[in-house]
């Protein structure tokens, strides 16, 4: 009997010990590389690839996503109006979708109905919250369109000059360098103004990026380059005007927005001139264009919340051709060139008990959400919280191979100057200088493999 008891006790102990073992992660081969967004991945490579809701939303959440989807496409018009009133009086465009074409990027022009480029403005110094110092009479963003009869703040014309880059093998690529000329200002701009071009970024997969734990982002940082690899990585800490706290910046091309609420509310406010519960005062406050209507906030709270939910729950397109040998070799080259040091291929999201597809997902965003010095050629020389004039947030690369489908003509980088992925790589400098130089030393065939890999993202 005693023996039986001992055996039973031992069996129990083994079972208990086994149960206590923490589940191990799969090795690399255990994951399907196509699932860029983990569970929040969609298999579509058409022009609508960026426009799908994530799977597994409950009926209510699907409805909110749809309401947000409709609102994202709504055209705003001048107030007073029974529907969609409140546009402007100064603005950049009339709807979210006008800039975020097919929920992706747009066209790097300014002031036209299909333009997706805007300009942030400031003067040297910082405001009370550490942000850029707004220009009296202009604020922090140049609104280059106005309601009929009102003057826009200014016009911006864009010209390009050719810059030739020659590979060691002798081949030459012609890049185009933009020059921005501000004219027709409705009142004088101070001579020391700083200007930063920003092309509308992708809006899918943002719920996943928002759900990356702050500790994970900070674990990627190496502000003083302690490991001497030439790459630092710095978090931006920014002021959240809704919570009135300083928080980690995640969104925007310089990571100057802490979350999707601030990013979306700010876009309504600054890009379209639509006041809302986060930014209830007209962007033209104190300017001659102000409408003086007592109609703020112009956007229903529920609409703003639905749009925030919409961008939070847009799925990430799956990778293509992951078993193609060129793609596989291109991936190795991507890692060997150390592109993956900033464009982090794999990141784990945190806990989100409300939205299963965002919860604890292994995703492939190809970003670390950190700021990096990108060199003089890409510098805007305009600080934005902790980002200096040369630093930009690492752009996520997921979906980059689909830009030609979603946008008609693809454009890359923060101002859309690059027309191909190759051009975008060749513009890299600063912390990425060494990676670029090594790229330029590759054989034509290997360069092609790297591009083919990126087109699979």
């Amino acid at each position, binding site marked *: 009997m005693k023996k039986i008891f001992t055996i039973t006790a031992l069996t129990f102990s083994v079972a208990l010990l086994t149960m206590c073992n923490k589940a191990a992660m799969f090795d690399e081969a255990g994951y399907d590389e196509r699932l860029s967004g983990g569970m929040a991945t969609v*298999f*579509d*490579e*058409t*022009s*609508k690839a960026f426009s799908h809701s994530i799977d597994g939303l409950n009926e209510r959440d699907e409805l909110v996503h*749809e309401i947000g989807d*409709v609102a994202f496409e709504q*055209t705003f*018009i*001048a*107030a*007073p*109006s*029974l*529907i*969609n009133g409140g*546009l402007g009086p100064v603005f950049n465009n*009339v709807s979210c979708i*006008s800039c975020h*074409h*097919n929920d992706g990027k747009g066209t790097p022009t300014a002031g036209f*109905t*299909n333009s997706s480029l805007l300009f942030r403005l400031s003067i040297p110094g910082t405001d009370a919250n550490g942000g850029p110092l707004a220009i009296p009479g202009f604020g922090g963003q140049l609104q280059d*369109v106005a*309601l*009929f*009869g009102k003057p826009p703040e200014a016009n911006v014309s864009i010209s390009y000059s050719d810059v030739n880059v020659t590979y060691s093998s002798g081949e030459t690529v012609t890049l185009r360098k933009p020059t921005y000329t501000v004219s027709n200002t409705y009142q004088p701009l101070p001579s020391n103004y700083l200007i930063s071009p920003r092309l509308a970024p992708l809006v899918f997969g943002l719920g996943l990026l928002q759900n990356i734990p702050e500790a994970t982002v900070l674990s990627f940082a190496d502000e003083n380059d302690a490991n001497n690899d030439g790459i630092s990585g710095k978090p931006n800490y920014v002021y959240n005007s809704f919570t009135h706290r300083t928080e980690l910046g995640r969104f925007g091309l310089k990571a100057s927005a802490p979350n999707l609420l601030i990013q979306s509310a700010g876009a309504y406010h600054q890009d379209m001139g639509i006041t809302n519960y986060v930014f209830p005062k007209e962007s033209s406050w104190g300017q001659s264009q102000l409408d003086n209507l007592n109609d703020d906030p112009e956007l229903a709270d529920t609409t703003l919340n639905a749009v925030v939910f919409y961008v939070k729950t847009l799925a990430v397109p799956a990778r293509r051709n992951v078993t193609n040998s060129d793609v596989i070799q291109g991936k190795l080259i991507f890692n060997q060139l150390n592109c993956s040091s900033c464009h982090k291929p794999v990141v784990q999201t945190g806990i989100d008990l409300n939205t299963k597809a965002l919860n604890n997902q292994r995703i492939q965003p190809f970003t670390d959400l950190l700021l990096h010095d990108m060199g003089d050629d890409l510098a805007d020389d305009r600080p934005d919280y902790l980002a200096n004039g040369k630093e930009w947030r690492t752009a996520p690369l997921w979906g980059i191979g689909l830009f*030609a*489908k979603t*946008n*008609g*003509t693809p454009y890359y980088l923060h101002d859309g100057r690059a027309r191909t992925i190759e051009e975008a790589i060749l513009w890299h400098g600063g912390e990425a200088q060494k990676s670029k130089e090594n790229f330029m030393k590759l054989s034509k065939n290997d360069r092609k493999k790297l591009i083919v890999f990126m087109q699979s993202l």
Partner: protein
Amino acid sequence: MKKILFIAIVTFCITSCKKNEDTPAISFDELKTVALKDFTNNVAVPGYLDLDNAAINLNIAIQNLNTNATEVNLTAAKTAWKNMRGVWEQCEGFLFGPVEDNDYDPNMDTWPTDYVQMDSLLNSTNPLAIADIQNITLSLRGYHPIEYIIFGNHGNRTAASITARQKQYMLSLSEDLKSTCHQLYLSWTVAPTNFSNQVINAGTINSLYSKKQEVYLAIVNSLIAICEEVGEGKMKEPFDAMDPSIVESPYSGNSINDFRNNIIGLQNVYLGKYATNDGKGINDLVASKNIALDNKIQSQITAAISSFSNITMYYEDAIINQRLQCQQTMIALNTLKNTLENELKPFVIQYITD
């Protein structure tokens, strides 16, 4: 009698055999290529050509109205507007390619109309030339401002009440529309875009679409999108809010026709047919592998189109007084959308892999 019967049977057999020899069965692989060609040459390009011509006709009608503001000319302009609108709404059955890449859609069909800015514009000294129109905000361009000027509310506009400024505005608006439609047509037919070639050559290095599957999915997505836009957007939003002011095309009372034409456009694409053009469509591909699915899709399309006839008043009135009929149409559209999404799309993914 027996002899006659014999001759009849022999004749029938010979005729049948001959027909088979003339139209040999086409393989699924060939069908994939032919259906893309027929969609392009029989549906998309003729649709955009008709749109181009309809825009010219509208422009002529508006010029006549401008020169001679009679009720007859106003009626002719209204008819030309409705004709053009019908063609456009059918073209919305395949909203992919240049129409979205080059923003032709928002350039001509932005809703709502901006009355505040329209008043400012008309009361200003702006010359209202075509160049001025092409530089103004989208909500002051395209179909709906023209609709507002020539129809008024529910068509109560009289020719004599159209002001000189409104006339100049509608002239330039129709010129702008004509220009947009012509560019749209050219984008499918001539270099540099020549989008027809992109579709027909899908799966080759000469196309943006590296696989035929990609362009088929783009087409199916556009069918799903138009179902969604009509059922869950254009109809549902004013229906849920019981708000007639949200209804699109309210001045002409043309909303129901708009909705119906959208789904007829979907049907054209699915069947590879348009006007008198007939060819191979997605239906032929589906029928060759799954006749039950093809029957289901075709009957759901027909049911959705027919259901619009149950709404017998302006849509802005129907959302208040014929809610059941509106609801039934939205259910029919939702049913069709679900079939396209959950059965047709997987069919394409399963069977069109190249």
